[in-house]
């Protein structure tokens, strides 16, 4: 298993793509905006996403 290669391709490759466009802005206005009530957010701890 080439974990090192995965780190380069996925983590570093992803960061590179993210940096290719203008920087994200910190948003002051809707800083405390909550997700819509129907978004189905869970309680305190949060959950995960099942995969392969």
């Amino acid at each position: 298993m080439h974990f090192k290669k995965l780190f380069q391709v996925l983590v570093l490759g992803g960061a590179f793509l993210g940096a290719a466009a203008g920087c994200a802005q910190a948003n002051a206005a809707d800083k405390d905006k909550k997700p819509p009530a129907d978004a189905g957010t869970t309680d305190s701890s949060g959950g995960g996403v099942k995969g392969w």
Partner: protein
Amino acid sequence: MSSARRAAAEAWAFRARVEQEAALRFDRLAEVVASFDPDSPVPAMMRRAADDERRHTELCARLAGRLGNPVVLDRDAAVAAIAPRSLDERKAALYEVVAACCITETESMATLTTLLASEQDPEVREVLHAISRDEVVHSRMGWAHLSRESVAAEVAFLGPLVPGMLAGTIDAGLFGAPPADEDPEGLLRLGVLSLSKKRAVFLGTLEQVVFPGLEKFGVDPEPGRRWLAHAAGLR
């Protein structure tokens, strides 16, 4: 039916559902991310990813059917958001992107590359190839979003939340014993890892890809590491 065929048919049916959920999730997240980071390349990647996942759903479902487990997909399926309620919209989106892409899609890529390193039946291999080409981007878009947010916003809040993401991604049996009739070779030919291999890939990917990646962008991996040591009984 052989034990490998039965288990593989179940695994592909499960994958079909996972892919369907991913499509819905990426459609939703694309909109949210675009609302606070309009210059980001991530929303466009997510919309393409959602289309990919719809294709993958069909591929996985078809394979499950051929192996003897026809999948009935709920066309009106919805997918729940998973972030803790205490987070604001932007942080909730980051939580979900990290869980879905940085963790789950990265793990999927590791599984796919491990599978593709051995031989499969031709039809299975074709599906694995088609899917792995897309999953690379699905993982990358998570790291892309995390790296952008690490510059623009606060991401350290995620550290203590990583255990919840991990707990929600594994299935209950991952750290247990394999089924008595498990046929690792037969499973591999049908595109499925044996339990011990699956565990090794999961742990290796967390330790060598996900945790270092989180740390690189300012998310403390230690709570995740502690959770893992406990869950895997490595204390």
